[in-house]
């Protein structure tokens, strides 16, 4: 019976650690999936939202000396603003000039280069550590978590629930879904695509910013952190089903638990390899239909 008990505690550990550590990924994937749903292309520049969120937080937290909790919201909103700017000055003109989705992806890679290396030119490439608030440590059913992780988790689920409610139960959500499914019909029925897009890019950017803030406070802040997270964000959003906030949430949690489980057995890098390989196989199984 020892075997069984050990196995059970392994499963509990994996789920616990996985869910706690998945919160940045959940946020990033939910925001990413919205933009992909509405505009129909993979925005690699979204990863830089994660980086900038963390740097905005470090600006408020370290340079201006605000407490970490106070800097969360303004930093997220600033990232949302940045996201809207990239939409207004880069993607919207490109879409209006008739750049195709496959080229928009390359454009987003170019934008992500500009943002990332522009940031390095301004602030340098060194690691930055956020000034963490005092941390309380809770134990719970044999495993432990910090107060910070709990707050992150609560915020993530509040955000997720609100987003879900907005997309599926409000008039605004209906507009978003209408525009994504049939832009022409939506415009004919009087929906202003421009305004809806700006809101969506703002929400998605804020989600990326929040993801970056938590990623930064759990580990460290550096200019490559967004790039390191974007690939898995894209994977999770595609597997969860494009445009499905619920699917992104579910897939991100599963990815977090799988990563935790594989990390408990072997090296953390094998977890990444396994996820990437699983991603290729899932795409292959789905065949040419979609994404």
């Amino acid at each position, binding site marked *: 019976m020892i075997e069984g008990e050990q196995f059970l505690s392994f499963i509990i550990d994996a789920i616990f650690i996985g869910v706690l550590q998945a919160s940045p990924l959940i946020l990033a994937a939910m925001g990413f999936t919205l933009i992909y749903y509405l505009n129909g292309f993979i925005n690699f520049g979204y990863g830089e939202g994660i980086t900038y969120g963390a740097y905005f937080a470090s600006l408020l937290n370290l340079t201006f000396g605000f407490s970490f909790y106070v800097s969360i919201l303004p930093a997220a909103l600033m990232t949302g603003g940045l996201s809207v700017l990239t939409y207004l000055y880069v993607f919207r003109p490109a879409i209006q000039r008739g750049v195709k989705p496959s080229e928009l992806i390359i*454009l987003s890679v*170019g934008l*992500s*280069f*500009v943002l990332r290396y522009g940031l390095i030119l301004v602030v340098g490439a060194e690691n930055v550590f956020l000034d963490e608030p005092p941390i309380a440590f809770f134990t719970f059913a044999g495993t432990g978590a910090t107060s910070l992780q709990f707050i992150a988790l609560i915020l993530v689920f509040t955000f997720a629930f609100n987003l879900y409610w907005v997309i599926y139960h409000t008039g605004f959500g209906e507009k978003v879904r209408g525009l994504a499914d049939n832009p022409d019909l939506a415009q004919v029925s009087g929906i202003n695509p421009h305004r809806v897009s700006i809101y969506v890019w703002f929400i998605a950017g804020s989600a990326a910013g929040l993801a970056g803030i938590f990623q930064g406070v759990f580990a460290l802040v550096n200019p490559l952190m967004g790039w390191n997270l974007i690939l898995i964000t894209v994977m999770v959003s595609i597997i969860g089903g494009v445009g499905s906030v619920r699917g992104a949430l579910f897939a991100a949690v599963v990815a977090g638990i799988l990563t935790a489980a594989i990390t408990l057995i072997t090296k953390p890098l094998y977890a990444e*390899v396994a996820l*990437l390989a699983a991603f290729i196989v899932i795409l292959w199984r789905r065949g040419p239909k979609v994404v």
Partner: protein
Amino acid sequence: MAYFIFSLSLLLIYLGLALALHVQFGMLGVANFGVVGFWGLGMYAMAVFQVQLDLSFVDAFVLVTVLSLAISWLIGWLVLRLDPQATLCATIAFAAIVALLIVTEKWMTMGVVGIGTIRYPLRIGDGTEYLYFAVLVALVVGLQMLVLRLHKSPTGRLLQAIRDNEELCASLGKDTIRVKMFWFVGASVAMCLLGALSAPLNQFLTPNMIVPSVTFAVWIALVLGGKEHALGATVGVFVTFGVFDILIETYAPVSPELAVVVPNLKLFLYGLLLMAVLVYRPTGFLAPTTPPEEVWSRIKSGAITSFAAAQSGVKTLQATVNPKPKSSQDDKPDTTPSEPGDDKT
């Protein structure tokens, strides 16, 4: 001088990669974002065969060919049926897997410590590097000739037709998936073998060479030069890698503290250049229909423009690092490539 030959050899490797990508993306429409995966696979396989197994260059090269054929075939089989955006994600994931496995499999690749030394084949004393360079020139010129020929052949037209409308080609009785498979795998194997050939150039390999920037440098060169023109890849590599990595890094008078900034500034300008080209001139420098006699004049003006852009970028940077009272802050580099002549027929 030895460093200059090294840079030029590296330029040739990039040229080869861009030509292979031109076949995959420009002609066939398969967006391979895993260029560094294939290149890194070939390079590390060469190193492992030569250093760990102590094989000769020729034996190792044959083994790399077999290995890369198998892996390229597997990747082609997995990604070619997918929708273009999914292909892109799957290939980028492949490259990430290669980079991760190089770090984890220490027993084979020595992990982050790095693996070496890989020696040049055809050692003839002092002139070895020059001889190797000559071999690379011959190979890359051969690849370019092949691409030029492909553009004029019925096969080339078939590839372009598949890119534009695969269903139509299939309905006309063409075995599109087999054609795609053949050319995708061929180009991927070429990328692996170019990697194998760059192993002796680098001599000592570390995992931080296998980074996505390699993929994007090749992509930027191709998109900038003109992805659908037979000479686009070549022009693009000379304009990006040739100007930034060779002219600027070798000849621009930059102070040591600024020299650290130059690689970042380079990638920043690459990004800006890529965005400008995609928005203002999606076909790149050379549109698919640019007649051969116009190519040279366009290269001249284009290369001059982008050299000027890079130079003014360095100047802006110098001005911000050592501000002088009179320096103009708004002197932003103009990265939009010039458009001499009208190519609309």
